């Protein structure tokens, strides 16, 4: 028996040795910064050479509560994240169902559906800037050909900028949702659908009664992940509009980035980061809880 204990210990030591090389960079470059980031939120740190900063308690948070620009940005971030996530789900579901129903052109569609996922976000943003271009862009040319107003400056107009970037957000995020839902659809046993069809259920009834309930766990996880990814998204909108016009697309990540690296108020920016994380975690907990409860009921 003691020998076995010795072997177990040796095995454990070996395991730790094998895990260490991965653990070390994660601890130094990911866990430590996270902890330090939270600590930074309680200081007046500035991004200067030879920083010299003090603990200021909850001052940053008190100031933040009165910062209407931050809360405007927060509201825009919520609109962005919720609409992109819902549209991704709806569009992804539609495409996944089509890809699962034995049509032609599937190969082409599958490839097309993956490309946005692979492309560098910078290239996606450059591409859509061209599509939205007010004078020589294809979107306005198309609208003009239909006899509609063709002089909208999509990314610079106060009312169209946010919807325009949301469309790009859906474009870039749809593939992952589609692929995930498609994988889920393919796991639903065909007999379930056949049984429902025998009972005389139409396509819509079958979707409600068979497809949706089977996909439920997958829908819950992919919407949660999408919501967080979208809320944390930065590159796309930074390049498309830099938060403009007049802050209409100023996602919270952009706002915080500018506070930290343009205004150099790194402590204050950290407080913003903490608030954003806490709110997202809270919302997600509520969502997952309600989903879990429904599942129990259903």
């Amino acid at each position, binding site marked *: 028996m003691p020998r076995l204990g010795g072997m177990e210990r040796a095995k454990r030591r070996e395991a730790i040795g094998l895990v260490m090389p*991965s653990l070390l960079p994660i601890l130094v*470059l*990911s866990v430590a910064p996270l902890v330090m980031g939270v600590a930074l939120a309680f200081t007046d740190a500035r991004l200067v050479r030879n920083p010299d900063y003090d603990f200021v308690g909850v001052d940053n948070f008190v100031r933040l509560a009165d910062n209407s620009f931050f809360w405007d940005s927060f509201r825009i971030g919520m609109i962005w994240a919720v609409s992109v996530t819902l549209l991704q789900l709806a569009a992804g579901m539609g495409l996944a169902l089509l890809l699962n129903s034995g049509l032609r052109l599937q190969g082409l569609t599958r490839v097309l559906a*993956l*490309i946005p996922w692979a492309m560098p976000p*910078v290239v996606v943003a450059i591409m859509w800037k061209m599509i939205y271009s007010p004078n020589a862009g294809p979107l306005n040319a198309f609208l003009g050909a239909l006899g509609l107003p063709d002089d909208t400056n999509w990314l610079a107009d106060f009312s169209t900028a946010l919807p325009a970037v949301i469309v790009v957000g859906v474009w870039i995020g749809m593939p992952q949702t589609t692929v995930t839902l498609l994988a889920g659809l393919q796991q639903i046993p065909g007999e379930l659908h056949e049984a429902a069809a025998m009972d005389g259920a139409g396509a819509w009834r079958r979707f409600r009664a068979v497809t949706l309930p089977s996909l439920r*766990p997958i829908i819950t996880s992919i919407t949660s992940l999408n919501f967080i990814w979208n809320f944390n998204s930065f590159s796309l909108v930074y*390049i498309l509009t830099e938060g403009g016009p007049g802050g209409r697309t100023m996602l919270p990540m952009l706002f915080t980035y500018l506070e930290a690296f343009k205004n150099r108020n*790194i402590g204050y920016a950290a407080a913003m980061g903490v608030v954003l994380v806490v709110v997202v975690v809270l919302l997600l907990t509520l969502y997952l809880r309600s989903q879990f409860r429904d599942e129990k009921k259903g």
Partner: protein
Amino acid sequence: MRTLVRPAQYAALALYIVFLGFPLLWLISASVKSSAELNSLTVSLIPQAWHWENYAQSLARQGLVHSAWNSLVVALASTALVILIALPAAYVLARLKGKIRAAGVGWILVSQVFPVILVILPLFLILRTIGLTDSLVGLTLVHTTYTLPFALWMLQGYVAAIPLDLEEAGSMDGATRFTVLRRIVVPLLAPGVVATAMFSFVSSWNEFFFALVLLQSPENYTLPITLTMFIGGEGKVALGPLAAGSVLAAIPSIVFFSIMQKKLTGGLLSGAVKG
């Protein structure tokens, strides 16, 4: 009823194809158009004349090749590092049960939703202290750290798929543990390692945010940063070469992605669901 369903489905599919595909076609078309045509009011997908020299011009301009080289170095180095350190850890993760595995898997999932904006501030301070801001070495380390969790996730799935019996049969034959790993486990893992490497490469090659924050001098810029510098002075910019450069920047990612697309099907979630 049935006769109406199919045409409706094809109409919907056509809309998807246009929505997903048209922007790509437009970018490619813009990459061979002259500036005159790109700024003219007659808009057409098919170029009036094919200006392939846009590609040559984009390569000749503003250090595009140099920053592509930087991107390549960072992507290759971080990919090599990721595989090197993730492989042993993934092996342990897949083969050991109990608390370590639960903690590891839990951490991987949490890291997918990591608040990058909160992390970047202290990370910047840490890297500045050790002189690794505005450095490709620093960027490589950061890319490695942030690709690691997903790479671990992918790899441990591949390890878990190798039957333990195979390894035990190896040890019965008197092979040492190291030999078993080298002769049996590693060859079986090769396809998984290739897929994971491609994923790491694409993540690093496409990455924008960390590069934007960490890199300051133009000679260190990676490709995405240099491309955004092109957009800078709106109107004055030669759109044709910008589009050409963008097409070139997207090619490596798209090629790798299409090779590994089957392995990504379901991605993170299928792993989670199948356990």
